[in-house]
């Protein structure tokens, strides 16, 4: 492979996973991943709380 190809190859297959790992490290450090499961509750609120079924078939 030519030099350009090597550069691009390294770019795609090395730089990206490495930056992904850095991003993961950043995320852990700044607490992005703490209490992650709280995020699952965002779709509920007082109007439609957890436990409320919100769909049904129309009654004839």
């Amino acid at each position, binding site marked *: *492979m*030519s030099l*350009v*190809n090597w550069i*691009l*190859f390294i*770019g*795609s297959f090395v730089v*990206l996973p490495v*930056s*992904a790992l850095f*991003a993961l490290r950043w*995320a852990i450090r700044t607490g*992005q*991943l703490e209490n*992650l499961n709280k*995020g699952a509750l965002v779709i509920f609120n007082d109007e439609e709380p957890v436990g409320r079924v919100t769909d049904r078939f129309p009654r004839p």
Partner: protein
Amino acid sequence: MNYGPLLFLGVFLTLASSWVGLVLVPQIQFGRLEPVKIEETGEIYPMARSGLAEQGRELYRAYGCVYCHSQQVRAEDFGADIQRGWGKRRSVARDYLRDKPVLLGTMRTGPDLTNIGMRQPSVSWHLLHLYDPQMTSAGSIMPPYAFLFDRQKQGLQKSPDALPLSGKFSPDPGYEIIPSPEARALVAYLLSLKSSASLPEVK
């Protein structure tokens, strides 16, 4: 995962990775191939098509022939393309240099056409087949392209271009079917489909 800019960056970089790997790198690697001169015959390959064949190619595209016919021969040890006589060698990138768009196709409802110009060089076979595939290939599911032909009143003599139809395929008495310029162009294109020149990269 609330940080918009980080999400944007990650989303951008992930698609950028395959844009580089699957689009940019191929463009660099084989996007500037040029035709080559074949030593044995002195020909340039791939040869430019005649004007009529290029017109035929536009019709091939416009009528969607690509949805039933592929134009790529697979290697000898992969599938049975070469054993079926669809080509002498597998297709390579250089075969498609002049094609806009490249009509590789992804379906073989009908046979592969990479080398149909070699396999079936008869103009009249193609005209008959296009007019009604059942004539040459009973049981085929290819549709008839009778609209590429004109029906005209027979003169004192049959026109030399008239299709030799018989039986249930023949038109009403006193009429004959002649190919339109579109039909001729399409057949010229099909006959131009030959890509078995031995290339340096396939030896």
